């Protein structure tokens, strides 16, 4: 391996890349579009609060402190509906596709003040158990609070609720490391598989074999290029995710090992997939078969914590899982032990695949 020859090859790689708008689009723009798209789709579920239409038929201090208690749970987002009668409330809810609704009856405040029993009415949609459950919990908690207060008591046991991983994360927060992983996977894989198979068909490798450039040098310059590209695209994704969608992620230096080893792994894997295939057509098929499961099952779009055990078992076979898990560990959870394990696993896989690619990949034929 000579650095001089890698340095000679790099400008060729970069020019071929920068003079190809499609490659640029898929490596730099496409991941941003995905962040935008998924960010917009899941923007409202980010804090998990459910919109709760409320028919307020009692205007008293008691009813407003009840609504305050509801809002304070953080689970619901109270929306007062005016100009709706009690009889048409249910059908209006249905028309507005609201899965839940709450009626605070007339005399609510007087009842609370007089300590007479009084009911609020909760409408729920059995077709949306998640929203119904959330709202039921919120209403129950507010009711309990008011009951305690009315009885002059205070709760003895409280619950301090936290999201797994000790901090509360929104979907967009998981999406950033996931999509960085997505870009680390797809941009080198797709282009390397295509490149290797067409270069061989067009005789470029035979031509290069007549120069002092070695296969390892050729592969190294591509790895370096994709590391650079990954750094740029990760920076862009962080910028858009944080500025555009309020993602709350850390940007620690501990991200870097993954941004280096990821492209190392997938440039090598793309080369391996492209080398074992006899034609560009079979290369594309092999490339897709290798890439697609990883694209969806490694925690790119959906956190792997939501996976069922069998699905998780599959995910853990895919190398990208460890890249994304590592990124999550350093960017979200600050769990460096786990990140170190992930990094070790990816590094070992990468070295094995790099060597396999070099051995499989022949410049010339017998």
């Amino acid at each position, binding site marked *: 391996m000579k650095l001089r020859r890698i340095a*000679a090859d790099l*400008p060729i790689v970069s020019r071929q890349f920068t003079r190809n708008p499609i490659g640029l689009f898929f490596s730099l723009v496409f991941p941003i579009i995905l962040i935008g798209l998924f960010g917009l789709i899941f923007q409202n579920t980010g804090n998990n609060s459910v919109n709760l239409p409320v028919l307020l038929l009692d205007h008293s201090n008691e009813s407003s402190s009840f609504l305050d208690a509801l809002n304070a749970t953080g689970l619901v987002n109270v929306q007062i509906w005016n100009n709706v009668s009690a009889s048409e409330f249910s059908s209006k809810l249905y028309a507005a596709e609201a899965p839940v609704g709450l009626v605070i009856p007339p005399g609510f405040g007087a009842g609370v003040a007089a300590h007479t029993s009084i009911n609020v009415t909760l409408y729920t949609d059995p077709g949306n158990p998640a929203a119904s459950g959330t709202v039921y919990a919120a209403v129950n908690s507010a009711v309990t609070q008011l009951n305690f207060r009315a009885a002059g008591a205070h709760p003895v046991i409280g619950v301090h609720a936290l999201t797994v991983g000790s901090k509360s994360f929104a979907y967009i927060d998981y999406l950033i490391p996931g999509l960085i992983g997505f870009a680390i996977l797809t941009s080198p894989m797709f282009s390397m598989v295509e490149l290797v198979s067409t270069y061989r068909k067009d*005789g470029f490798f035979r031509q290069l*074999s007549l120069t*002092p*450039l070695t296969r390892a040098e050729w592969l190294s310059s591509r790895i370096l290029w994709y590391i650079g590209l990954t750094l740029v695209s990760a920076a862009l994704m962080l910028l858009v995710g944080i500025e555009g969608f309020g993602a709350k992620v850390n940007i620690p230096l501990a991200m870097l090992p993954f941004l280096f080893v990821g492209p190392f792994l997938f440039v090598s894997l793309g080369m391996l997939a492209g080398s074992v295939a006899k034609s560009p057509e079979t290369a594309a098929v092999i490339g897709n078969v290798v890439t697609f499961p990883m694209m969806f099952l490694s925690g790119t779009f959906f956190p792997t914590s939501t996976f069922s055990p069998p699905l998780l078992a599959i995910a853990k076979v895919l190398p990208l899982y460890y890249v994304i898990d590592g990124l999550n560990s350093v960017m979200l959870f600050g769990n460096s032990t786990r990140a170190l394990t992930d990094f070790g696993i990816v590094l070992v896989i990468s070295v094995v695949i790099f060597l396999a690619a070099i051995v499989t990949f022949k410049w010339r*034929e017998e």
Partner: protein
Amino acid sequence: MPDAICVEGLAKRYGTLRAVDGVSFTVPEGRVFAFLGPNGAGKTTTVEILEGLRNRSAGSVQVLGLDPWKDGPELHEQIGVIPQEFRFFDKIHPREAVVYYARLFGSTVDPLAILRRVYLEKKADARFDTLSGGQKQKLGLALSLVNNPRVLFLDEPTTGLDPQARRGIWEVIRALRAEGRTVFLTTHYLEEASLLADQVAIIHRGQIISSGTPEQIIAAHGRPDRLRFEAGPEVARYLSGKLPFAVTNEPPYVDVELRRKQDALQVLTVLEASQLGWDHLSVARDTLEDVFVRLVGRMDDGVIKSEAS
């Protein structure tokens, strides 16, 4: 003069196909050697074995004293190659390509000077995919020169080019020879071989069917010189009755084969005495093409007509 290339009993089999079947030849340093043959004759297979791109099935091969398959890296420092149908990366410019090769070889060259040598300096900054066929081949030549090679291998460097582009490449090849470089050239153009080569080997179905200088090949396999004039069949009949020479009549020509130059005098004397009409006197001499067509045609009728284009 030492031999740049030395091939003895070279054979290459693809399964049961004997693509190269016991080929031997030597190329002295500083000469242009043309490997002439129709498509599928085994030219590319041979030249790629010499470059170390393919392994051989049998025989011995030495290029500059090295075994191309085993000593590839060492050999590649000293040779230049244009593969058949040379292509480069579509989006790269000739100047960038030359700089790239120069850096790989660790040689310091002026990219423009190299491009000027192959008459490509005007296209130094055009993308490869915008170049014409001839300009692409010229870039191939430029790249093969970057490491100042002692031996150049050019596999059909002018196939598919228009006549003017072809002449441009020929000019460069002549200049390379003048610089003392050895050139191994494959072609299926007879004109190219006879114009450029010091030595020619005609290969057909993996075997060399004739070799030597173009003149030697013509002398060995060509017909004798013929006295030719335009005349009718009665002249042909009259002459064959009066003369001890072979007379052929392919209208409008009558050809009389000469054993010696002096025989021409006898033919003209008899012709003059006949009082028959004739016109346009000339001497017809076999070209490499005639020999090639006859040699290859003798082995299998029709191959040349259908495959060579």
